[in-house]
């Protein structure tokens, strides 16, 4: 049985993009690809938790960053993670110009829509990565 693909959102709390990254991650792990995708606490990883570090080193990782500050990518890289694919919520916003997600605490309608679009793309990447050899 293949290892699940690890999805690591930035979970940035200051902007809607962080909430969207997080929401999309949960959609993939819990709804779209349960058992094939997993996540873990980014802060636990950066604080040096051994189990978390072993997981990112031995699994294929997908990072999802809300904004160009790229906290997930930077933190995962520094923690020895194998990043296979990087997503940025900002890039999806450019492809979906009509959407204006503003709310952070609870996603608004546009935030939900963008989360669904992102989750579908991430799920497709999970499928691709699962097909590849470990």
């Amino acid at each position, binding site marked *: 049985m293949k290892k699940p693909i690890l999805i690591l959102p930035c979970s940035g709390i200051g902007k809607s993009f962080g909430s969207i990254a997080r929401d999309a991650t949960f959609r993939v792990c819990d709804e779209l690809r349960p058992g094939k995708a997993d996540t873990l606490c980014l*802060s636990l990883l950066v604080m040096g938790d051994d189990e978390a570090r072993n997981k990112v080193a031995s699994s294929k990782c997908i990072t999802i960053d809300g904004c160009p500050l790229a906290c997930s990518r930077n933190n995962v890289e520094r923690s020895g993670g194998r990043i296979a694919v990087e997503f940025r919520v900002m890039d999806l916003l450019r492809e979906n110009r009509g959407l204006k997600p503003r709310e952070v605490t609870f996603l608004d309608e546009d935030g939900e829509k963008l989360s669904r679009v992102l989750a579908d793309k991430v799920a497709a990447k999970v499928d691709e990565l699962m097909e590849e050899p470990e």
Partner: protein
Amino acid sequence: MKIRPKIGVVSCSGECCGLGTLSRVATRLVLEDLRNDQTVTICLPLFLTGEIQEHGFAKEYPTIAVDGCGKLCAKKAITTYSKEPAASVDVEALLKEWEVESPKNRRVLDANNVKTARRLAELLAEKVDKIQEAP
């Protein structure tokens, strides 16, 4: 005239479970609604990258760490990279004390979970007040 410092409220990122989502929502409610002129959120993932403004604020001003569980990532990170928080909450332990169930869904909080988030936000607001009142 007493100067009341702004308080940095730091939630764990808590991707592993609904407790992280609860912590995050409660933190945002304090910032947006209950104490918006008195609080600042510190973005923990950004803080962990070493970002100067986040570190700078946490070194100079009091903080409250809001951790979803007993691993206490937010408290440990703030203590390691700036200084010990003025207050800290372990949400998992608190919910046990309140005899309230943890969220079952980490993406969507149901009506009861949202009520719990608001109750937690009120508690955090009280902690903000207590820190600001302190001599």
